[in-house]
């Protein structure tokens, strides 16, 4: 060991968000839920499909939010876990005729394992390096899925076609509407799980690590365990989102899960507000609808529009949708005071 060692005091990876500021109040949550419940009554099938995708991407952004907003670790590799989840569901449904609802927990568990394992080497990295290592994971994933070795399960470059499930119990719902409600139930259940997780002992451990790793370890928190656990939980939820995505889109192929998807999810998190769980839906709306608008303005420009908007968010509203929500709340409070 050399006599002179570099001593570094690092800037915080992520701004500390108190756990109360992470969620909406009970009243607001119920209003949002009721609105989401009523959507299919007023919308056409295509819009219902888009709302389903909104929920699914929202779930994936939520997963990233637990990892980054909760435990302060970065990931640009969420698309890899999303792909694993999607392929798990698709393969189970198509090759082994498993019921679609049962494939989701399997996808979640497999992705939890994958995330937990990937979390081990990721422990050595922090901040930007972690982002780059996960970036490598995301870029490697489509090539792995194309391998000849897996082709009899994955269908290789061609991908797999997934059948859309019908509404059960003789319900008179179209496939799209049924899938929307199914997704909504799954997403709400996972949202409640996530909120409770962040309020629990484990959640507090995540946040302690996020705010100061060394202090957290001095307080007796097993830093390695909780960091990998956060990775696992995040990957697991992303896997469920991936499975839902495969069922909704009815198709999986290696090139649907490129680094572009991972970047979109990251972007959704930043726009929604890091560490603010309800913001995930706002972020997801952003990544679904903005590219459409951008493509409308000029083909091939969506990357630039994305980038410019991201810079605007960073400079003008660094806390994303959370900041906007707080400003609105204060404005409302003032109106009431008059």
């Amino acid at each position, binding site marked *: *060991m*050399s006599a002179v*060692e*570099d*001593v*570094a*005091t*690092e*800037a*915080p*990876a*992520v*701004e500390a968000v108190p756990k109360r500021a992470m969620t909406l109040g009970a009243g607001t949550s119920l209003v949002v839920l009721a609105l989401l419940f009523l959507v299919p009554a007023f919308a056409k099938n295509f819009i219902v499909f888009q709302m389903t995708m909104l929920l699914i991407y929202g779930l994936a952004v939520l997963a990233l939010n637990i990892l*980054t907003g909760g435990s302060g670790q*970065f990931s*640009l590799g969420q698309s890899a876990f999303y792909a694993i989840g999607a392929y798990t569901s698709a393969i189970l449904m198509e090759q082994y005729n498993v019921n679609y609802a049962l494939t989701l927990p399997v996808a979640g568990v497999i992705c939890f394992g994958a995330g937990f394992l990937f979390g*081990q*080497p*990721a422990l*050595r*990295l922090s*901040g*930007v*390096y972690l*982002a*780059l*290592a996960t*970036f*490598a994971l995301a*870029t*490697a994933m489509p*090539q*792995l899925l*194309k*391998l*000849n*070795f897996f082709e009899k399960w994955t269908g290789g470059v061609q991908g797999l076609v997934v059948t859309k499930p019908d509404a059960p119990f003789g319900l008179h719902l179209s496939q799209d509407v049924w899938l929307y409600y199914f997704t909504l139930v799954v997403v709400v259940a996972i949202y409640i799980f996530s909120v409770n997780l962040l309020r629990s002992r484990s959640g507090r451990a995540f946040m302690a690590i996020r705010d*100061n790793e*060394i*202090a957290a370890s001095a307080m007796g928190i097993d830093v390695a365990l909780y960091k990998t656990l956060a990775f696992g939980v995040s990957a697991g939820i992303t896997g469920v989102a991936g499975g839902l995505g495969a069922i909704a889109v009815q198709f999986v192929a290696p090139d649907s899960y490129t*680094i572009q998807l991972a*970047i979109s999810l*990251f*972007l959704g998190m*930043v726009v929604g507000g*890091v560490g603010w769980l309800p913001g995930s839906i706002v972020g997801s709306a952003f990544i679904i609808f903005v590219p459409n608008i951008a493509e409308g303005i*000029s083909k*091939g*420009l*969506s*990357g*630039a529009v*994305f*980038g*410019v908007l*991201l*810079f605007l968010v*960073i*400079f003008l509203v*660094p806390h994303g949708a959370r900041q906007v929500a707080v400003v609105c709340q204060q404005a409302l409070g003032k109106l009431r005071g008059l």
Partner: protein
Amino acid sequence: MELFTNQILAGIATGAIYACMALAVVMIYQAIDHLNFAQGEMAMFSTFISWQLMQWGVPYWAAFVLTLALSFAAGIAIERLLFKPLAKAPILTNVAGFIALYAIINSFAGLIWDFTIKQYPTPFGSSPFLGSQLISTHQAGMIGITLLLLLMLYFFFQFTRVGLAMRAAASLPESARLVGINTSWMIALGWGMAAAIGSIAGMMIAPVVFLEPNMMLGVLIYGFAAAVLGGLTSPFGAVIGGFLVGIFENLAGTYIPGVGNELKLPIALALIITVLVVKPAGLFGRHIVKRV
């Protein structure tokens, strides 16, 4: 045995590409303590500019020097305009900024020069080097340029006042400010230099991988693997790491069945993960102690 030595030679040739990129990655780390995702895209854009200059009839070396100067200026401009205001922001904000830059540059390159693959000239010619079939004069020239660059960087950091000031500003900003170093401009200078080195890497790589907006993705991942292997704090290590990664890639492709071009990126990923598990500081990196 001949196959083995040939593969090692070919590995050194491809390794030069990665060494160049790894050098740029480590360089910007030395200067700003962050890793720039947009590095590859910036290099790609610089290469396109040099290509455009040559299309307009500028001779190769003039275009080379002009691109170098433009990239240096652009690097400084990007830092001053976009990243200086973020200096105090959390790392997450910086990462988001890098990604935004990545998306913008990639998109604009596609818009201006479209996504078709373009031939890119080499100044060294592409005849066999010293009669060897595996290593062309271009690859030999590329190795030479990488080593020359490393030597120049070494002298710059060890023996010039600005180089010393840059190292000081990167390792202990407060103390550096106290002795009168303008740390803010040192960071800008670091951006400029990284952009310039990146543009050299791009112009050297383009004849091999062909010019297109996504040409740098795989190279950046391999460059990062090389930097991790060599140790992220050491420019020398980055270059050695680059050559080692190139050799490893070629040997794996030859001797491990089922590993071909389609597995290029997973190999890099496996390499990164292995190094991080076995020797996180890399071969030549220094251990960093953190304080509360």
